């Protein structure tokens, strides 16, 4: 009986996927006029064109390598993530904030002993952690000129903490992490609000940017990325602590 049911479910799933696949196929092979799913709109009409040319504010402006631009981040993806669509990114921070907080809320609090780590791991951990923290730091500092940025940097830094946790090292306390998290989050939104009071618009990049390609360029982006990196690192590390941390349960049942 049970097998029959799951067989039926499989068949239904395949039937649905077949319908979906047929639909996508018919869309992809459609011969009607208009922009098809296989085409792109004319390049000049796409928003990316203006992002690449960095002329969103002034249609006719041009920029030079090593010169000024409306957004001086050399990494165009970063300039989109952390400047043109900064609002999205700050909301993304909130997404991580709320999910990690939800995680901390729902996970059952039980004290779980971490297995004694091997001698090798225990002694080499500090070195490993330092190296990982360095890589993370490099990433968020250079996020605007090379691949990387606040999120992967934060993730890598939190991996360092994870290694520490697994090795049984006391690195940072959970409360410190919470404080870092809250302070970084508050700062991000305070900077956003500061933009309103300085330039009349929220989430505006109000620092005068350097030259394209310089380390000290792109205005607020490195600062924001630093904050994001710390916040993400603190949040993700919080998750690992939650796994092993005991504590009181407030039962509202």
């Amino acid at each position, binding site marked *: 009986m049970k097998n029959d049911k799951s067989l039926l479910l499989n068949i239904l799933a395949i039937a649905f996927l077949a319908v979906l696949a047929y639909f996508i196929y018919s869309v992809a092979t459609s011969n009607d006029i208009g922009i098809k799913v296989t085409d792109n709109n004319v390049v000049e009409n796409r928003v990316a064109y203006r992002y690449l040319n960095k002329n969103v504010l002034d249609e006719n402006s041009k920029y030079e390598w090593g010169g000024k631009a409306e957004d001086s981040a050399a990494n165009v993806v970063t300039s989109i993530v952390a400047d043109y669509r900064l609002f999205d990114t700050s909301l993304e921070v909130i997404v991580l904030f709320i999910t990690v907080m939800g995680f901390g809320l729902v996970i059952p609090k039980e004290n779980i002993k971490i297995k004694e780590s091997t001698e090798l791991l225990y002694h080499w951990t500090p070195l490993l952690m330092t190296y990982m923290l360095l890589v993370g730091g490099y*990433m968020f500092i250079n996020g605007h000129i090379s*691949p990387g940025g606040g999120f992967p940097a934060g993730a890598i830094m939190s*991996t360092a903490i994870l290694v520490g946790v697994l090795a049984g090292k006391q690195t940072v306390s959970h409360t410190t992490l919470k404080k870092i998290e809250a302070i970084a989050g508050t700062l991000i939104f305070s900077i956003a609000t500061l933009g309103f009071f300085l330039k009349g618009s929220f989430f505006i990049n109000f620092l005068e940017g350097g030259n394209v390609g310089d380390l000290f360029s792109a205005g607020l982006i490195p600062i924001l990325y630093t904050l994001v990196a710390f916040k993400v690192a603190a949040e993700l590390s919080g998750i690992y602590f939650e796994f092993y941390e005991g504590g009181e349960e407030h039962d509202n049942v």
Partner: protein
Amino acid sequence: MMLLLATFLSFVMIATAIWVILTPSLLKAIIIFAIVSLVASVSFIFMQAPDVAITEASIGAGITTAIFILSYKRVSEKN
């Protein structure tokens, strides 16, 4: 050459994804999922997206897998 490599990567991805779905062992599925993620991050490099590749490797393959394994330990210890 690149095209062939890309095709190979795609096959690996699809095959491992099917394996994730079909394998009865949870731990195996989690580990294999890490492979899917890693291969995907290589594919991002193929498509000229190093930012995404780094993020996918560190978050998708690294942290997600870590959380999965830690959770797996929590839900399997009583059995």
